[in-house]
């Protein structure tokens, strides 16, 4: 088997870039382009925090099993870069001390010490965030949870997994796969991101349509509060109506009110049969109709419904051509495309349902054309049509990326409005404007979640273009009752714009919650609620 299988595998990887590995690494490759755009000014250092000293380091070393610092020469500034810089290489902190505790008790001691000494702390997981939330802005102590990486328990009857916050998402999923279960969250950065960080940022990802958000799947948390208090809320109960559901406050709190050291999460059985189909369609209305039909016909086996427009597809095709991996997919192309994935436990049952849907769509001429994967190679290469959009946009130019959510019916209207705005501003290529700095405005996203990604591809970043896009894009999201951050969070990047999505009363309540948990404001300062 070996030779043939290996050559097949090589062929397959050349023709279809795997959906598992590529998005993360490829974005990393595109990162230097993005780094140019850190013009947005950062808040100044606050004097209320102590400056980290040699003395602080000595004390932290006595309570944490591992530290790295420029203050005692155990690391150079260069070696601390991966802790200080964000993943897009857009934000650059100057934290001189990295603390890597191994147990919850150590985290507690570190936080208590920092609390008593007015040291600001930035909690850090895999540092894969997209809004500058997991790296220091100035000289905060970096509390990295990499060493807190043990699976604590798994119940094969209930599917409840209890694990440390620093467990890597992919490691957790591999552990579960061996037992026939699946982690209810999947995203491009799975090889690096931590499950504690996923919960702290309320990550969305590819499985949300099927398994719901972490607000539903997380059953309990263990959190260290800013003063060092350990809150044990590691419940394994699905139902528990006894008072405020405190864990919900920490899900999506981005490390501002406590550090998640362990999670208890409900994991479903791993689907054994998967199918994927991609369609070409002539309008966004048609995409919506197909979405409704897919939900009706497929029911519980529908596991993803993604859409992308012809601009996105053109970027992917161009990228694939340049890499020699292009392949004709559709006889009839369209203005829109959608991808449907099913996952179930019985392949015959799933195929019968899927075939029913396909026949219905073809007979009623609701789609122009479509293809259905016949094997795993095709499964991967069809997924890559959607998965490669961000990478392909990155290769085409400098990209302004927006992650918003709006009611499904209004999703694509936002992209059209953005195009009109750029055309009126005289910066969009085409329509007699050949040298316009904007090459493409591509819209794609998780249709099932109402989550739209708008990628604006420019020949270079410029203030002129940025002023046309922002804050206009946030205004139109707000007009459509949407959110300016669907799944990426606020961090430092979007903190100033929270007002577009939340009213004054909400923001005031958030401030009160922050003060209640963290009266000194030491945890992840300069971000989130400012």
């Amino acid at each position, binding site marked *: 088997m070996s030779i043939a299988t290996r050559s097949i595998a090589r062929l397959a990887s050349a023709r279809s870039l795997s959906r598992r590995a590529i998005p993360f690494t490829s974005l990393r490759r595109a990162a230097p382009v993005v780094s140019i755009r850190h013009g947005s000014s950062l808040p100044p250092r606050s004097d209320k925090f102590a400056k980290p000293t040699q003395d602080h380091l000595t004390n932290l070393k006595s309570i944490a099993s591992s530290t790295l610092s420029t203050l005692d020469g155990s690391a150079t500034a260069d070696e601390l870069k991966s802790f200080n810089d964000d993943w897009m290489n857009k934000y650059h902190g100057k934290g001189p001390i990295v603390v890597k505790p191994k147990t919850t008790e150590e985290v507690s001691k570190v936080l208590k010490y920092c609390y008593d000494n007015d040291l600001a702390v930035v909690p850090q997981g895999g540092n894969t965030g997209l809004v500058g939330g997991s790296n220091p802005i100035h000289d905060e102590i970096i509390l990295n949870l990499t060493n807190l990486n043990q699976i604590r328990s798994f119940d094969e009857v209930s599917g409840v997994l209890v694990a440390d916050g620093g467990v890597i998402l992919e490691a957790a999923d591999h552990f579960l796969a061996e037992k026939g279960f699946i982690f209810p969250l999947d995203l491009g950065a799975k090889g690096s991101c931590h499950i504690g960080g996923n919960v702290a940022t309320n990550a969305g990802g590819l499985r949300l349509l099927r398994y719901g958000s972490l607000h539903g799947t997380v059953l309990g948390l263990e959190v260290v509060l800013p003063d060092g208090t350990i809150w044990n809320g590691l419940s394994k109960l699905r139902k528990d109506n006894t008072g405020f559901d405190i864990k919900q406050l920490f899900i999506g709190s981005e490390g501002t009110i406590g550090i998640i050291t362990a999670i208890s999460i409900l994991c479903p059985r791993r689907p054994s049969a998967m199918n994927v*189909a991609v369609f070409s369609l002539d309008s966004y209305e048609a995409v919506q109709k197909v979405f409704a039909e897919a939900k009706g016909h497929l029911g519980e086996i529908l596991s993803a419904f993604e859409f992308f427009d012809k601009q996105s597809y053109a970027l992917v095709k161009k990228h694939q051509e340049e890499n020699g991996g292009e392949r004709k997919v559709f006889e009839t192309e369209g203005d829109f495309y959608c991808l449907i994935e099913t996952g179930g436990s019985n392949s015959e049952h799933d195929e019968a349902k899927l075939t029913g849907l396909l*026949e219905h769509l073809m007979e009623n001429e609701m789609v122009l054309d479509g293809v*259905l994967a*016949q094997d795993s190679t095709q499964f991967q290469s069809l997924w890559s049509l959607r998965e490669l959009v961000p990478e392909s946009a990155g290769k085409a130019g400098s990209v302004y990326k927006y992650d918003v959510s709006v009611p499904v019916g209004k999703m694509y209207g936002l992209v059209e409005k953005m195009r009109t705005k750029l055309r009126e501003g005289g910066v969009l290529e085409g329509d007699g404007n050949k040298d316009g700095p904007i090459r493409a405005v591509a819209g794609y996203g998780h249709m099932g979640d109402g989550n739209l990604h708008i990628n604006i591809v420019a020949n270079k970043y410029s203030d002129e273009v940025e002023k046309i896009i922002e804050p206009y894009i946030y205004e139109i999201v707000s007009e459509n009752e949407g959110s300016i951050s669907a799944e990426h969070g606020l961090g430092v990047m979007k903190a100033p714009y929270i007002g577009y999505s939340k009213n004054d009363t909400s923001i005031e309540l958030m401030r009160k919650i922050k003060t209640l948990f963290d009266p000194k404001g030491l945890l992840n300062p300069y971000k989130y609620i400012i």
Partner: protein
Amino acid sequence: MRPTLPSLVNILVPVKRSIDYAVKIRVASDGKGVDTNVKHSMNPFDEIAVEEAIRLREKKPSVVTSITALSIGPPKAVDTIRTALAMGADSGIHITVPENTVVEPISVANAIKKIIQDKKFDLVIMGKQAIDDDSGSTGGMLAGLLGWGQGSFASKLTIEQDGKVNVTREIDGGLEIIESKLPMIVTTDLRLNEPRYASLPNIMKAKKKKIETFKPEDLGLDFTPRFETISVSEPAKRQGGGKVGSVDELVAKMKEAGII
């Protein structure tokens, strides 16, 4: 041998239902085979064969009269035939055997020979091997049984109007081009083409295409195996590597291992 009229080329494409290439293979609990309760698809080399037959017809519609997909396998092998039909084959033939029956290459070659004699084909395009047992011998055996010419491991295939066939083969150090006449057997290599996707309209059309079904005994075939599998075991587990702290240590370790 009947005269080969170029306008009457009938192509037979044998397709095997095998374990999907992406599936992690596990030894079955009885130690006599592998766990087959996993995802199956068409053998990738056979997919290339189907694609090539369709491309030949697209290039020379007047030359290729018909494309037939043949599969020997359990009831579910009919899905594999449907995939070939969805790609563009015209009709299918299914020789059914019970689930988990081992059909050895010589039995497969005899079965294909029988079908060819009954139905009259001029060209067989088939995978050079199946990725499950990796025998890679059916094509050669079939050519021997029929006394036909063969072009194995094809990376390029052309048919001329006069029935002349050119097969380009990738060999060590370059390309070999052989010329033969129909009827003949061609086995496919990876670089011959890239199979197309099955489009929805074609998947729907494929449902209406005809598939003939036979049992081995209907055709006077005997699939009794000649070999007995004694045991199947997993390869030795790879030992994990170690980390070295410095270049000197690396050099020392390499010397120790006798690499340098």
